[in-house]
Protein backbone atom coordinates (compact mmCIF):
# COMPACT_ATOMS: atom_id res chain seq x y z
CA UNK A 1 0.00 0.00 0.00
CA UNK A 2 2.85 2.36 0.83
CA UNK A 3 4.32 2.05 -2.65
CA UNK A 4 0.96 2.87 -4.22
CA UNK A 5 0.68 5.89 -1.99
CA UNK A 6 4.07 7.23 -2.98
CA UNK A 7 3.23 7.03 -6.67
CA UNK A 8 0.07 9.08 -6.30
CA UNK A 9 0.74 12.70 -7.10
CA UNK A 10 -1.21 14.60 -4.48
CA UNK A 11 -3.04 17.86 -4.91
CA UNK A 12 -0.35 19.63 -2.92
CA UNK A 13 1.52 22.33 -4.83
CA UNK A 14 4.62 20.15 -5.08
CA UNK A 15 2.69 17.31 -6.72
CA UNK A 16 1.17 19.54 -9.36
CA UNK A 17 4.47 21.19 -10.15
CA UNK A 18 5.98 17.81 -10.88
CA UNK A 19 3.38 17.07 -13.54
CA UNK A 20 4.61 17.83 -17.08
CA UNK A 21 1.21 19.16 -18.13
CA UNK A 22 1.50 22.03 -15.66
CA UNK A 23 4.58 23.21 -17.57
CA UNK A 24 3.10 22.49 -20.99
CA UNK A 25 0.34 24.98 -20.20
CA UNK A 26 2.93 27.49 -19.02
CA UNK A 27 4.82 27.01 -22.29
CA UNK A 28 1.67 27.67 -24.32
CA UNK A 29 0.99 30.90 -22.44
CA UNK A 30 4.64 31.96 -22.78
CA UNK A 31 4.58 31.24 -26.52
CA UNK A 32 1.50 33.44 -26.91
CA UNK A 33 3.11 36.23 -24.93
CA UNK A 34 6.51 36.12 -26.62
CA UNK A 35 5.77 35.30 -30.29
CA UNK A 36 4.26 38.64 -31.40
CA UNK A 37 6.52 40.65 -29.10
CA UNK A 38 9.52 39.60 -31.16
CA UNK A 39 9.82 42.21 -33.88
CA UNK A 40 6.66 43.98 -32.72
CA UNK A 41 4.52 41.85 -35.06
CA UNK A 42 1.12 43.56 -34.88
CA UNK A 43 -0.51 41.29 -37.44
CA UNK A 44 0.46 38.16 -35.53
CA UNK A 45 -0.70 39.81 -32.31
CA UNK A 46 -4.18 40.43 -33.70
CA UNK A 47 -4.35 36.86 -34.95
CA UNK A 48 -3.29 35.42 -31.59
CA UNK A 49 -5.54 37.80 -29.70
CA UNK A 50 -8.55 36.31 -31.40
CA UNK A 51 -7.15 32.82 -30.77
CA UNK A 52 -6.78 33.67 -27.07
CA UNK A 53 -10.42 34.78 -26.96
CA UNK A 54 -11.54 31.57 -28.69
CA UNK A 55 -9.43 29.46 -26.34
CA UNK A 56 -10.89 31.27 -23.32
CA UNK A 57 -14.44 30.67 -24.53
CA UNK A 58 -13.78 27.03 -25.45
CA UNK A 59 -11.98 26.20 -22.20
CA UNK A 60 -14.74 27.67 -20.09
CA UNK A 61 -17.62 26.12 -21.99
CA UNK A 62 -15.75 22.85 -21.62
CA UNK A 63 -16.20 23.07 -17.84
CA UNK A 64 -19.93 22.63 -18.20
CA UNK A 65 -20.08 20.87 -21.59
CA UNK A 66 -17.10 18.55 -21.33
CA UNK A 67 -17.07 17.84 -17.60
CA UNK A 68 -20.71 18.09 -16.50
CA UNK A 69 -22.24 17.11 -19.87
CA UNK A 70 -24.56 20.09 -20.15
CA UNK A 71 -24.76 21.79 -23.55
CA UNK A 72 -24.70 25.54 -23.04
CA UNK A 73 -25.68 27.10 -26.36
CA UNK A 74 -25.90 30.57 -24.88
CA UNK A 75 -22.45 30.86 -23.31
CA UNK A 76 -21.78 34.02 -25.29
CA UNK A 77 -24.13 35.88 -22.96
CA UNK A 78 -21.30 35.87 -20.38
CA UNK A 79 -18.87 37.38 -22.87
CA UNK A 80 -21.35 40.03 -24.00
CA UNK A 81 -22.51 40.99 -20.52
CA UNK A 82 -18.90 41.18 -19.36
CA UNK A 83 -18.28 43.57 -22.23
CA UNK A 84 -21.26 45.70 -21.31
CA UNK A 85 -20.42 45.90 -17.61
CA UNK A 86 -16.79 46.83 -18.33
CA UNK A 87 -17.61 49.41 -20.97
CA UNK A 88 -20.33 50.91 -18.78
CA UNK A 89 -18.19 51.01 -15.63
CA UNK A 90 -15.44 52.76 -17.56
CA UNK A 91 -17.51 55.23 -19.58
CA UNK A 92 -20.19 56.16 -17.06
CA UNK A 93 -18.45 55.62 -13.74
CA UNK A 94 -14.87 56.35 -14.76
CA UNK A 95 -13.41 53.12 -13.37
CA UNK A 96 -10.06 51.84 -14.62
CA UNK A 97 -9.86 48.79 -16.88
CA UNK A 98 -8.71 46.33 -14.22
CA UNK A 99 -11.45 47.21 -11.75
CA UNK A 100 -14.12 47.42 -14.46
CA UNK A 101 -13.34 44.06 -16.05
CA UNK A 102 -12.89 42.17 -12.76
CA UNK A 103 -16.01 43.61 -11.11
CA UNK A 104 -17.79 43.06 -14.43
CA UNK A 105 -16.70 39.41 -14.33
CA UNK A 106 -17.98 39.01 -10.79
CA UNK A 107 -21.28 40.67 -11.68
CA UNK A 108 -21.74 38.28 -14.61
CA UNK A 109 -20.92 35.30 -12.38
CA UNK A 110 -23.53 36.49 -9.90
CA UNK A 111 -26.08 36.77 -12.71
CA UNK A 112 -25.09 33.32 -13.97
CA UNK A 113 -25.76 31.98 -10.50
CA UNK A 114 -29.26 33.42 -10.62
CA UNK A 115 -29.92 32.12 -14.17
CA UNK A 116 -28.45 28.75 -13.17
CA UNK A 117 -30.82 28.31 -10.25
CA UNK A 118 -33.65 28.53 -12.76
CA UNK A 119 -32.46 26.67 -15.84
CA UNK A 120 -30.28 23.96 -14.30
CA UNK A 121 -33.41 22.13 -13.25
CA UNK A 122 -33.74 21.27 -16.92
CA UNK A 123 -31.80 18.57 -18.68
CA UNK A 124 -30.72 17.67 -22.19
CA UNK A 125 -32.34 19.53 -25.07
CA UNK A 126 -34.51 21.57 -22.69
CA UNK A 127 -31.47 22.95 -20.93
CA UNK A 128 -29.80 23.76 -24.25
CA UNK A 129 -32.91 25.63 -25.40
CA UNK A 130 -33.15 27.50 -22.12
CA UNK A 131 -29.56 28.72 -22.48
CA UNK A 132 -30.43 30.17 -25.88
CA UNK A 133 -33.45 31.73 -24.20
CA UNK A 134 -31.24 33.37 -21.58
CA UNK A 135 -29.02 34.86 -24.28
CA UNK A 136 -31.98 36.13 -26.31
CA UNK A 137 -33.74 37.53 -23.25
CA UNK A 138 -30.62 39.38 -22.12
CA UNK A 139 -30.10 40.71 -25.64
CA UNK A 140 -33.71 41.91 -25.78
CA UNK A 141 -33.33 43.55 -22.38
CA UNK A 142 -30.09 45.32 -23.29
CA UNK A 143 -31.52 46.47 -26.64
CA UNK A 144 -34.17 48.36 -24.65
CA UNK A 145 -31.99 49.44 -21.73
CA UNK A 146 -31.27 53.16 -22.18
CA UNK A 147 -28.40 53.50 -19.65
CA UNK A 148 -26.50 51.03 -21.85
CA UNK A 149 -27.33 52.92 -25.04
CA UNK A 150 -30.18 50.55 -25.99
CA UNK A 151 -29.90 49.36 -29.59
CA UNK A 152 -27.15 51.78 -30.58
CA UNK A 153 -24.75 50.63 -27.89
CA UNK A 154 -21.97 52.48 -26.10
CA UNK A 155 -18.94 54.20 -27.65
CA UNK A 156 -15.84 54.65 -25.56
CA UNK A 157 -13.78 57.80 -25.77
CA UNK A 158 -10.25 57.08 -27.03
CA UNK A 159 -9.08 59.13 -24.04
CA UNK A 160 -9.65 56.00 -21.98
CA UNK A 161 -6.62 54.47 -23.72
CA UNK A 162 -4.34 57.22 -22.36
CA UNK A 163 -3.76 55.67 -18.90
CA UNK A 164 -2.43 52.60 -20.72
CA UNK A 165 0.12 54.69 -22.60
CA UNK A 166 -1.87 55.71 -25.66
CA UNK A 167 -3.76 53.60 -28.23
CA UNK A 168 -0.76 51.79 -29.72
CA UNK A 169 0.58 50.60 -26.39
CA UNK A 170 -2.91 49.96 -25.00
CA UNK A 171 -3.43 47.30 -27.68
CA UNK A 172 -0.37 45.46 -26.38
CA UNK A 173 -1.57 45.77 -22.79
CA UNK A 174 -4.96 44.37 -23.76
CA UNK A 175 -3.29 41.56 -25.67
CA UNK A 176 -1.16 40.52 -22.69
CA UNK A 177 -4.19 40.75 -20.43
CA UNK A 178 -6.19 38.48 -22.75
CA UNK A 179 -3.30 35.99 -22.91
CA UNK A 180 -3.34 36.08 -19.10
CA UNK A 181 -7.08 35.36 -19.08
CA UNK A 182 -6.49 32.50 -21.53
CA UNK A 183 -3.78 31.09 -19.24
CA UNK A 184 -6.05 31.34 -16.22
CA UNK A 185 -8.75 29.52 -18.22
CA UNK A 186 -6.36 26.65 -18.94
CA UNK A 187 -5.22 26.37 -15.33
CA UNK A 188 -8.79 26.66 -14.05
CA UNK A 189 -9.86 23.84 -16.34
CA UNK A 190 -6.88 21.74 -15.25
CA UNK A 191 -7.32 22.28 -11.52
CA UNK A 192 -11.04 21.54 -11.75
CA UNK A 193 -10.33 18.38 -13.72
CA UNK A 194 -7.95 16.95 -11.14
CA UNK A 195 -10.07 18.01 -8.14
CA UNK A 196 -12.88 16.40 -6.21
CA UNK A 197 -15.22 19.01 -7.73
CA UNK A 198 -14.13 17.84 -11.20
CA UNK A 199 -14.69 14.20 -10.29
CA UNK A 200 -18.21 15.05 -9.18
CA UNK A 201 -18.85 17.01 -12.38
CA UNK A 202 -17.65 14.14 -14.55
CA UNK A 203 -19.89 11.77 -12.61
CA UNK A 204 -22.81 14.10 -13.37
CA UNK A 205 -21.77 14.12 -17.03
CA UNK A 206 -21.77 10.34 -17.17
CA UNK A 207 -25.02 9.70 -15.33
CA UNK A 208 -26.58 12.41 -13.21
CA UNK A 209 -29.02 10.17 -11.34
CA UNK A 210 -26.33 7.65 -10.45
CA UNK A 211 -24.06 10.50 -9.35
CA UNK A 212 -26.74 11.82 -6.99
CA UNK A 213 -27.29 8.35 -5.52
CA UNK A 214 -23.54 8.16 -4.91
CA UNK A 215 -23.76 11.40 -2.96
CA UNK A 216 -22.64 14.02 -5.49
CA UNK A 217 -24.48 17.23 -4.54
CA UNK A 218 -25.74 17.67 -8.09
CA UNK A 219 -27.75 20.92 -7.83
CA UNK A 220 -24.92 22.76 -6.07
CA UNK A 221 -22.21 21.43 -8.37
CA UNK A 222 -24.13 22.29 -11.52
CA UNK A 223 -24.85 25.82 -10.33
CA UNK A 224 -21.24 26.27 -9.25
CA UNK A 225 -19.80 25.18 -12.58
CA UNK A 226 -22.23 27.34 -14.53
CA UNK A 227 -21.27 30.28 -12.34
CA UNK A 228 -17.51 29.62 -12.54
CA UNK A 229 -17.64 29.12 -16.32
CA UNK A 230 -19.07 32.64 -16.65
CA UNK A 231 -16.26 34.57 -14.96
CA UNK A 232 -13.27 34.43 -17.32
CA UNK A 233 -15.34 34.77 -20.54
CA UNK A 234 -16.91 37.86 -18.98
CA UNK A 235 -13.48 39.34 -18.21
CA UNK A 236 -12.37 38.48 -21.75
CA UNK A 237 -15.50 40.19 -23.08
CA UNK A 238 -14.64 43.29 -21.09
CA UNK A 239 -11.13 43.44 -22.55
CA UNK A 240 -12.33 42.60 -26.05
CA UNK A 241 -14.99 45.30 -26.23
CA UNK A 242 -12.75 47.84 -24.52
CA UNK A 243 -10.25 47.20 -27.30
CA UNK A 244 -12.89 47.94 -29.93
CA UNK A 245 -14.04 50.98 -27.91
CA UNK A 246 -17.57 50.12 -28.92
CA UNK A 247 -20.25 47.62 -27.91
CA UNK A 248 -23.72 46.98 -29.28
CA UNK A 249 -26.20 44.17 -28.61
CA UNK A 250 -25.89 42.34 -31.92
CA UNK A 251 -22.11 42.01 -31.51
CA UNK A 252 -22.18 41.25 -27.80
CA UNK A 253 -24.80 38.50 -27.91
CA UNK A 254 -23.99 36.92 -31.27
CA UNK A 255 -25.19 33.29 -31.08
CA UNK A 256 -22.79 32.32 -33.88
CA UNK A 257 -19.95 32.93 -31.46
CA UNK A 258 -21.68 30.63 -28.95
CA UNK A 259 -22.00 27.87 -31.50
CA UNK A 260 -18.37 28.29 -32.49
CA UNK A 261 -17.33 27.88 -28.84
CA UNK A 262 -19.12 24.52 -28.74
CA UNK A 263 -17.67 23.43 -32.09
CA UNK A 264 -14.14 24.32 -31.03
CA UNK A 265 -14.44 22.50 -27.69
CA UNK A 266 -15.77 19.39 -29.44
CA UNK A 267 -13.29 19.62 -32.29
CA UNK A 268 -10.40 19.54 -29.84
CA UNK A 269 -11.96 17.00 -27.50
CA UNK A 270 -14.45 17.93 -24.80
CA UNK A 271 -13.67 16.83 -21.29
CA UNK A 272 -9.92 17.29 -21.75
CA UNK A 273 -7.97 20.40 -20.77
CA UNK A 274 -5.83 20.78 -23.87
CA UNK A 275 -8.47 19.70 -26.39
CA UNK A 276 -10.69 22.79 -26.35
CA UNK A 277 -7.61 25.04 -26.59
CA UNK A 278 -6.25 23.02 -29.50
CA UNK A 279 -9.64 23.00 -31.23
CA UNK A 280 -10.06 26.73 -30.71
CA UNK A 281 -6.62 27.46 -32.14
CA UNK A 282 -7.09 25.26 -35.20
CA UNK A 283 -10.57 26.64 -35.80
CA UNK A 284 -9.45 30.25 -35.42
CA UNK A 285 -6.65 29.72 -37.95
CA UNK A 286 -9.07 28.10 -40.36
CA UNK A 287 -11.60 30.83 -39.82
CA UNK A 288 -9.18 33.70 -40.46
CA UNK A 289 -8.05 31.99 -43.64
CA UNK A 290 -11.64 31.54 -44.79
CA UNK A 291 -12.51 35.14 -43.92
CA UNK A 292 -9.63 36.56 -45.97
CA UNK A 293 -10.10 34.29 -48.96
CA UNK A 294 -12.36 35.78 -51.64
CA UNK A 295 -14.12 32.54 -52.45
CA UNK A 296 -15.05 31.71 -48.88
CA UNK A 297 -15.97 35.05 -47.28
CA UNK A 298 -18.36 34.43 -44.36
CA UNK A 299 -18.18 30.77 -45.14
CA UNK A 300 -16.77 29.83 -41.72
CA UNK A 301 -20.22 29.22 -40.25
CA UNK A 302 -21.02 26.64 -42.91
CA UNK A 303 -17.71 25.02 -42.11
CA UNK A 304 -18.40 25.05 -38.37
CA UNK A 305 -21.79 23.43 -38.95
CA UNK A 306 -20.27 20.73 -41.11
CA UNK A 307 -17.43 20.24 -38.62
CA UNK A 308 -19.90 19.77 -35.78
CA UNK A 309 -21.73 17.13 -37.76
CA UNK A 310 -18.56 15.27 -38.65
CA UNK A 311 -17.26 15.34 -35.06
CA UNK A 312 -20.52 14.14 -33.56
CA UNK A 313 -20.82 11.35 -36.11
CA UNK A 314 -17.26 10.14 -36.50
CA UNK A 315 -14.97 11.52 -33.83
CA UNK A 316 -16.78 12.16 -30.55
CA UNK A 317 -13.41 12.36 -28.81
CA UNK A 318 -12.20 15.14 -31.13
CA UNK A 319 -8.52 15.76 -31.86
CA UNK A 320 -7.47 14.63 -28.39
CA UNK A 321 -9.44 11.42 -28.77
CA UNK A 322 -7.59 10.75 -32.00
CA UNK A 323 -4.21 11.56 -30.44
CA UNK A 324 -4.92 9.30 -27.44
CA UNK A 325 -5.84 6.42 -29.74
CA UNK A 326 -2.79 6.97 -31.91
CA UNK A 327 -0.35 7.31 -28.97
CA UNK A 328 -1.96 5.89 -25.81
CA UNK A 329 1.05 7.06 -23.77
CA UNK A 330 -0.05 10.66 -24.35
CA UNK A 331 -2.89 10.18 -21.89
CA UNK A 332 -0.37 10.37 -19.08
CA UNK A 333 1.18 13.59 -20.35
CA UNK A 334 -1.64 15.61 -21.94
CA UNK A 335 -4.69 16.10 -19.76
Amino acid at each position, binding site marked *: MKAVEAKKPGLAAGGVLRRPFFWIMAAIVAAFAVAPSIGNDVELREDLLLAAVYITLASNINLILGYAGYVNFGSIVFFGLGGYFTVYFMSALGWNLVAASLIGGLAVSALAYAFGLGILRLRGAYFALATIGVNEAVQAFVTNFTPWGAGTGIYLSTELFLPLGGPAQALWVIYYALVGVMGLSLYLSYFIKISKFGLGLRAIGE*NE*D*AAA*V*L*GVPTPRYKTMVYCVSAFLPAVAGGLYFFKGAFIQPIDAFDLNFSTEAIVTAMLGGQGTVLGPALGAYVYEQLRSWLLTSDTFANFQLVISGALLLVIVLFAPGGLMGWLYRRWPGLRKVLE
Partner: protein
Amino acid sequence: MTALLAIENLGKRFGGLAAVQDLSFEVAEHEILGLIGPNGAGKSTLFNLINGVFKPDSGRVVFRGADITGMAPYLVARAGLARTHQIVQPLGAMSVRENCTVGACFGRENLPLAAARQIAEEVAVFVGLGDRLDVPASQLTVAGKKRLELARALSAQPTLLLLDEVLAGLNPTEVERMIAVIRRIRERGVTILMIEHLMQAIMSLSDRIVVLNTGQKLAEGSPSEVANDPAVIEAYLGDPELAAEFRGALA
Protein backbone atom coordinates in the same frame (compact mmCIF):
# COMPACT_ATOMS: atom_id res chain seq x y z
CA MET B 1 -32.16 -4.79 18.81
CA THR B 2 -32.13 -1.11 17.91
CA ALA B 3 -33.70 -0.14 14.63
CA LEU B 4 -31.24 1.41 12.19
CA LEU B 5 -33.95 2.06 9.63
CA ALA B 6 -37.66 2.34 10.31
CA ILE B 7 -40.27 2.40 7.57
CA GLU B 8 -43.47 3.87 8.98
CA ASN B 9 -46.79 3.61 7.12
CA LEU B 10 -45.10 4.37 3.82
CA GLY B 11 -47.31 4.87 0.76
CA LYS B 12 -46.69 5.77 -2.89
CA ARG B 13 -49.13 5.87 -5.80
CA PHE B 14 -48.32 6.11 -9.50
CA GLY B 15 -51.56 7.36 -11.01
CA GLY B 16 -54.12 4.73 -10.13
CA LEU B 17 -51.58 2.14 -9.07
CA ALA B 18 -50.67 1.87 -5.40
CA ALA B 19 -47.04 0.77 -5.67
CA VAL B 20 -46.48 0.78 -1.91
CA GLN B 21 -49.30 0.96 0.64
CA ASP B 22 -49.19 1.53 4.37
CA LEU B 23 -45.93 -0.34 4.71
CA SER B 24 -44.11 -0.54 8.03
CA PHE B 25 -41.07 -2.55 9.14
CA GLU B 26 -37.72 -2.05 10.78
CA VAL B 27 -34.17 -3.02 9.95
CA ALA B 28 -32.08 -3.74 13.04
CA GLU B 29 -28.45 -2.84 13.32
CA HIS B 30 -26.02 -5.43 11.92
CA GLU B 31 -28.69 -7.69 10.45
CA ILE B 32 -29.30 -8.81 6.89
CA LEU B 33 -32.94 -8.27 6.07
CA GLY B 34 -34.16 -9.92 2.90
CA LEU B 35 -36.97 -8.37 0.90
CA ILE B 36 -38.83 -10.74 -1.38
CA GLY B 37 -42.03 -10.69 -3.38
CA PRO B 38 -43.29 -11.28 -6.88
CA ASN B 39 -42.45 -8.90 -9.72
CA GLY B 40 -44.32 -5.63 -9.28
CA ALA B 41 -44.65 -6.09 -5.53
CA GLY B 42 -43.05 -2.67 -5.00
CA LYS B 43 -39.59 -3.72 -3.85
CA SER B 44 -37.53 -1.43 -6.07
CA THR B 45 -40.04 1.38 -5.53
CA LEU B 46 -39.48 0.96 -1.82
CA PHE B 47 -35.73 1.37 -2.32
CA ASN B 48 -36.37 4.52 -4.35
CA LEU B 49 -38.56 5.85 -1.55
CA ILE B 50 -35.94 5.09 1.07
CA ASN B 51 -33.04 6.78 -0.69
CA GLY B 52 -34.98 9.79 -1.95
CA VAL B 53 -35.29 9.05 -5.66
CA PHE B 54 -39.08 9.21 -5.17
CA LYS B 55 -40.96 11.20 -2.55
CA PRO B 56 -43.57 9.12 -0.71
CA ASP B 57 -47.20 10.28 -0.63
CA SER B 58 -47.55 9.27 3.00
CA GLY B 59 -45.55 7.85 5.87
CA ARG B 60 -42.00 8.34 7.08
CA VAL B 61 -38.53 6.92 6.61
CA VAL B 62 -36.41 7.17 9.76
CA PHE B 63 -32.70 6.42 9.49
CA ARG B 64 -30.52 6.40 12.63
CA GLY B 65 -33.23 8.30 14.46
CA ALA B 66 -33.47 11.09 11.88
CA ASP B 67 -36.41 11.63 9.55
CA ILE B 68 -35.04 11.35 6.01
CA THR B 69 -38.40 11.18 4.23
CA GLY B 70 -38.17 12.75 0.78
CA MET B 71 -34.61 13.95 1.34
CA ALA B 72 -32.56 14.34 -1.87
CA PRO B 73 -30.58 11.18 -2.77
CA TYR B 74 -27.19 12.86 -2.32
CA LEU B 75 -28.10 13.88 1.22
CA VAL B 76 -29.29 10.38 2.01
CA ALA B 77 -25.97 9.05 0.70
CA ARG B 78 -24.08 11.50 2.86
CA ALA B 79 -26.08 10.32 5.87
CA GLY B 80 -24.56 6.86 5.40
CA LEU B 81 -27.06 4.97 3.30
CA ALA B 82 -25.71 3.49 0.07
CA ARG B 83 -27.47 1.43 -2.59
CA THR B 84 -26.91 -0.56 -5.73
CA HIS B 85 -29.20 -0.52 -8.76
CA GLN B 86 -31.06 -3.46 -10.19
CA ILE B 87 -30.21 -2.15 -13.66
CA VAL B 88 -26.53 -1.32 -13.39
CA GLN B 89 -25.66 2.37 -13.67
CA PRO B 90 -21.91 2.52 -14.32
CA LEU B 91 -20.23 5.86 -15.00
CA GLY B 92 -19.23 4.32 -18.31
CA ALA B 93 -16.31 6.40 -19.52
CA MET B 94 -14.74 6.53 -16.07
CA SER B 95 -12.45 3.80 -14.80
CA VAL B 96 -13.33 1.32 -12.07
CA ARG B 97 -11.03 3.27 -9.76
CA GLU B 98 -12.77 6.56 -10.57
CA ASN B 99 -16.23 5.05 -10.14
CA CYS B 100 -15.31 3.83 -6.66
CA THR B 101 -13.55 7.10 -5.85
CA VAL B 102 -16.81 8.95 -6.53
CA GLY B 103 -18.48 6.69 -3.98
CA ALA B 104 -15.75 7.24 -1.41
CA CYS B 105 -15.49 11.00 -2.00
CA PHE B 106 -19.16 11.79 -1.70
CA GLY B 107 -20.32 9.09 0.69
CA ARG B 108 -20.67 9.06 4.45
CA GLU B 109 -17.08 10.12 5.14
CA ASN B 110 -16.97 12.95 2.56
CA LEU B 111 -13.29 12.17 2.00
CA PRO B 112 -10.72 14.27 0.15
CA LEU B 113 -9.58 12.89 -3.18
CA ALA B 114 -6.34 11.15 -2.17
CA ALA B 115 -7.88 9.33 0.80
CA ALA B 116 -10.90 8.41 -1.31
CA ARG B 117 -8.67 6.85 -3.99
CA GLN B 118 -7.07 4.63 -1.42
CA ILE B 119 -10.42 3.42 -0.06
CA ALA B 120 -11.60 2.92 -3.64
CA GLU B 121 -8.65 0.68 -4.44
CA GLU B 122 -9.10 -1.36 -1.28
CA VAL B 123 -12.79 -1.87 -1.92
CA ALA B 124 -12.24 -2.75 -5.57
CA VAL B 125 -9.78 -5.44 -4.47
CA PHE B 126 -12.25 -6.59 -1.82
CA VAL B 127 -15.02 -7.27 -4.35
CA GLY B 128 -12.60 -8.85 -6.83
CA LEU B 129 -12.04 -5.97 -9.26
CA GLY B 130 -8.45 -5.41 -8.17
CA ASP B 131 -7.04 -6.27 -11.59
CA ARG B 132 -9.50 -4.01 -13.43
CA LEU B 133 -8.84 -0.72 -11.69
CA ASP B 134 -7.97 1.23 -14.83
CA VAL B 135 -10.57 -0.35 -17.11
CA PRO B 136 -13.46 1.94 -18.17
CA ALA B 137 -16.62 0.78 -16.40
CA SER B 138 -18.42 0.36 -19.72
CA GLN B 139 -15.99 -2.41 -20.71
CA LEU B 140 -16.74 -4.66 -17.72
CA THR B 141 -18.78 -7.84 -18.08
CA VAL B 142 -22.26 -8.04 -16.54
CA ALA B 143 -20.80 -9.70 -13.46
CA GLY B 144 -18.11 -7.04 -13.36
CA LYS B 145 -20.67 -4.24 -13.51
CA LYS B 146 -22.64 -5.86 -10.67
CA ARG B 147 -19.48 -5.99 -8.62
CA LEU B 148 -18.79 -2.38 -9.49
CA GLU B 149 -22.25 -1.38 -8.24
CA LEU B 150 -21.41 -3.08 -4.98
CA ALA B 151 -17.89 -1.65 -4.82
CA ARG B 152 -19.10 1.89 -5.41
CA ALA B 153 -21.73 1.61 -2.71
CA LEU B 154 -19.21 0.08 -0.29
CA SER B 155 -16.64 2.78 -1.03
CA ALA B 156 -19.03 5.20 0.63
CA GLN B 157 -18.42 3.26 3.85
CA PRO B 158 -22.14 3.18 4.55
CA THR B 159 -23.91 2.21 7.74
CA LEU B 160 -26.74 0.69 5.75
CA LEU B 161 -26.43 -0.92 2.35
CA LEU B 162 -29.43 -1.48 0.07
CA LEU B 163 -28.73 -4.25 -2.44
CA ASP B 164 -31.14 -4.49 -5.36
CA GLU B 165 -30.74 -7.90 -7.00
CA VAL B 166 -26.97 -8.02 -7.06
CA LEU B 167 -27.12 -11.73 -7.88
CA ALA B 168 -29.42 -11.50 -10.88
CA GLY B 169 -27.78 -12.36 -14.17
CA LEU B 170 -24.76 -14.01 -12.60
CA ASN B 171 -23.73 -17.62 -13.26
CA PRO B 172 -23.58 -20.09 -10.34
CA THR B 173 -19.85 -19.56 -9.72
CA GLU B 174 -20.27 -15.82 -9.73
CA VAL B 175 -23.28 -16.08 -7.41
CA GLU B 176 -21.20 -18.12 -5.01
CA ARG B 177 -18.43 -15.54 -4.97
CA MET B 178 -20.85 -12.65 -4.58
CA ILE B 179 -22.56 -14.33 -1.62
CA ALA B 180 -19.18 -14.70 0.05
CA VAL B 181 -18.54 -11.00 -0.51
CA ILE B 182 -21.92 -10.07 0.99
CA ARG B 183 -21.20 -12.15 4.09
CA ARG B 184 -17.86 -10.43 4.51
CA ILE B 185 -19.52 -7.03 4.19
CA ARG B 186 -21.81 -7.91 7.05
CA GLU B 187 -18.83 -9.09 9.10
CA ARG B 188 -17.44 -5.60 8.68
CA GLY B 189 -20.44 -4.29 10.59
CA VAL B 190 -22.55 -3.04 7.70
CA THR B 191 -26.29 -3.56 7.95
CA ILE B 192 -27.85 -4.89 4.75
CA LEU B 193 -31.33 -4.65 3.29
CA MET B 194 -31.45 -6.76 0.16
CA ILE B 195 -33.90 -7.54 -2.61
CA GLU B 196 -33.30 -10.88 -4.24
CA HIS B 197 -35.16 -13.29 -6.46
CA LEU B 198 -32.71 -16.10 -5.98
CA MET B 199 -34.49 -17.99 -3.19
CA GLN B 200 -31.72 -20.21 -2.04
CA ALA B 201 -29.33 -17.29 -1.70
CA ILE B 202 -31.65 -14.99 0.17
CA MET B 203 -32.92 -17.70 2.49
CA SER B 204 -29.42 -18.61 3.53
CA LEU B 205 -28.09 -15.06 3.80
CA SER B 206 -30.95 -13.32 5.61
CA ASP B 207 -31.53 -13.13 9.35
CA ARG B 208 -35.10 -12.07 8.69
CA ILE B 209 -37.31 -11.76 5.66
CA VAL B 210 -40.06 -9.30 4.74
CA VAL B 211 -42.45 -10.45 2.02
CA LEU B 212 -44.15 -7.83 -0.11
CA ASN B 213 -47.17 -8.36 -2.33
CA THR B 214 -48.97 -5.63 -4.28
CA GLY B 215 -47.17 -2.99 -2.26
CA GLN B 216 -48.18 -4.37 1.12
CA LYS B 217 -46.41 -6.42 3.72
CA LEU B 218 -47.58 -9.97 3.51
CA ALA B 219 -45.34 -11.57 6.10
CA GLU B 220 -42.30 -10.92 8.23
CA GLY B 221 -40.09 -13.27 10.19
CA SER B 222 -37.21 -15.71 10.07
CA PRO B 223 -36.69 -17.52 6.76
CA SER B 224 -38.37 -20.68 8.07
CA GLU B 225 -41.33 -18.80 9.55
CA VAL B 226 -41.89 -16.99 6.27
CA ALA B 227 -41.56 -20.14 4.20
CA ASN B 228 -44.19 -21.89 6.29
CA ASP B 229 -46.60 -18.96 6.40
CA PRO B 230 -49.81 -20.05 4.63
CA ALA B 231 -50.42 -16.54 3.26
CA VAL B 232 -47.00 -16.50 1.66
CA ILE B 233 -47.44 -19.95 0.20
CA GLU B 234 -50.84 -19.00 -1.11
CA ALA B 235 -50.03 -15.60 -2.63
CA TYR B 236 -46.41 -15.67 -3.44
CA LEU B 237 -45.71 -19.35 -3.75
CA GLY B 238 -48.93 -20.20 -5.54
CA ASP B 239 -46.66 -21.48 -8.20
CA PRO B 240 -45.94 -25.04 -7.03
CA GLU B 241 -42.56 -25.13 -8.71
CA LEU B 242 -41.44 -21.97 -6.92
CA ALA B 243 -42.83 -23.34 -3.67
CA ALA B 244 -40.68 -26.40 -4.05
CA GLU B 245 -37.63 -24.29 -4.67
CA PHE B 246 -38.50 -22.21 -1.63
CA ARG B 247 -38.75 -25.26 0.59
CA GLY B 248 -35.70 -26.77 -0.95
CA ALA B 249 -33.72 -23.69 -0.09
CA LEU B 250 -34.50 -24.26 3.57
CA ALA B 251 -33.74 -27.94 3.60
